[in-house]
């Protein structure tokens, strides 16, 4: 690691004042220390927000919940309210990393973890995300793990978070504190930027912004929720593709369907046209196949990851069958309570 100053912030104001262009927040440390050891991130100052009070709780927020930025991934997954009302979030968290890492990883850090593109991880290779304007070695390189949606000619990398995919399907918002102390909440599609010509700027946070938490809207009564992750080994691996679904069937028709896709884009991916095809319709295999075809019609794969298109289509169809009752639910598909 390059030398750095370590400061521990006692309050958000203190943290905000200590941040800036050459500084970085450290929360759990499980991603940033990995990257600092490889000198891929080289902050001159680390601002430890781990002991800032008020960020480590899960509290009622209207009919929903507000999850503090420092809540550990394992605590969030195991929370009784989350398991009952937002089970897709528990499932997504439990599918990620390992028991040890989930005990350390935080909600904010998980949202802001960096890509696993192998060329981003190799300082000897050109990477626009590490060094804007340097070029992108992945384009002509091995592209198995890269994205198929939302990429640009400057960067093809996928966002690795499982948690964020579930949050997108739950229409959650990210609470962000600006340098002047003002706070706003943003849907994930506004929080995460697409790469365009600046893949190094991944969110709208800015150098001294701090994520303070995540806001979950009221649970969707009577929904069936699922997180399905497809990967190279059964555990402790990043997603090749994943699907998060929150689906409600009423009177034999799909009343509501929220879907998000992981491992396939620079941010959790969603597609309104697919949702529109499903809502109001009776569950049906031909419909599900058509929706899956619609989803991948927009894909722009790398020659190495064309396999992700049929894989994503099949995963979506399978998840839709289970969440609408056409097939028996498997592990990872859970029902929430009907409204009281």
């Amino acid at each position, binding site marked *: 690691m390059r030398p750095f100053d370590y400061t521990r912030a006692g309050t958000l104001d203190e943290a905000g004042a200590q941040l800036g262009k050459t500084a970085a927040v450290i929360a759990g440390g499980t991603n940033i*220390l990995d990257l600092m050891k490889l000198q891929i991130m080289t902050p001159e100052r680390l601002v430890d927000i781990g002991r800032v009070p008020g960020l480590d709780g899960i509290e009622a927020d209207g009919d929903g919940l507000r999850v503090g930025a420092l809540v550990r991934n394992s605590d969030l997954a195991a929370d009784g309210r989350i398991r009952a009302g937002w089970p897709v979030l528990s499932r997504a968290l439990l599918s990620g990393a390992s028991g040890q890492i989930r005990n350390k990883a935080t909600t904010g850090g998980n949202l802001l973890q960096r890509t696993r593109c192998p060329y981003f991880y190799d300082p000897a290779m050109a990477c626009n995300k590490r060094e804007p304007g340097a070029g992108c070695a992945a384009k002509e390189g091995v592209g198995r793990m890269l994205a198929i949606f939302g990429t640009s000619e400057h960067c093809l990398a996928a966002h690795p978070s499982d948690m964020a995919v579930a949050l997108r399907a739950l229409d959650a918002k990210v609470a962000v504190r600006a340098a002047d102390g003002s706070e706003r909440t943003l849907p994930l599609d506004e929080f995460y930027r697409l790469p365009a010509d600046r893949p190094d700027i991944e969110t709208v946070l800015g150098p001294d912004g701090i994520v303070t938490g995540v806001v979950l809207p009221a649970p969707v009564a009577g929904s069936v929720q699922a997180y399905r992750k497809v990967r190279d080994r059964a555990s402790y691996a990043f997603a090749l593709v994943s699907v998060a679904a929150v689906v409600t069937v009423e009177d034999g028709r799909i009343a509501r369907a929220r879907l998000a896709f992981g491992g396939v884009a620079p941010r959790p991916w969603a597609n309104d046209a697919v949702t529109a095809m499903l809502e109001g319709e009776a569950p049906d295999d031909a419909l599900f196949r058509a929706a899956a075809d619609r989803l991948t019609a927009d894909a722009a794969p790398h020659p190495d990851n064309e396999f992700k298109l049929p894989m994503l289509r099949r995963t979506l169809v399978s998840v839709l069958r289970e969440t609408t009752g056409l097939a028996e639910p498997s592990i990872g598909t859970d029902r929430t309570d009907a409204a009281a």
Partner: protein
Amino acid sequence: MHTQLDVNGRAYALDHDPRTTLLDALRDHIGLYGTKKGCDHGQCGACTVLVNGRRINSCLTLAAMHDGDEITTVEGLGEPGALAPLQQAFVDCDGYQCGYCTPGQIMSATGMLEEAKAGDPSHVSASLSGDVALDDSEIAERMSGNLCRCSAYPFIRQAIHSVEGKE
């Protein structure tokens, strides 16, 4: 910089570079070599310790972040002649070959058994609502953060089975 650690019930005052990981503090500053460095990147679990009772990878955290924390390493679980049940079970079940991953396996299993006792679900739990039955697939999933190059997995699972619910 200065950091106070409570390791296995003993207080240590460290004077260290900010870059020192908890793993390097334990090995190079305190001289407890039970905790192993496998990958130094969170991928193998050899460095697993308990911090305030919960298992984490000590390679992916800074010593400075743990000022005042209680750390338990494999040396703190038990010693030759007075082994903890899980340590004894690894001996009895042949839960290792070279032994390099073993301290991490034992510390991880110690934390894992507490998580299961608290009813925390895993990725392979059929239901999220509680009751955890630690069968082979549950143990394998919950221990997937600990790699064993010698592939002693069947005996590691057997060792963990043999102490489950016994303490």
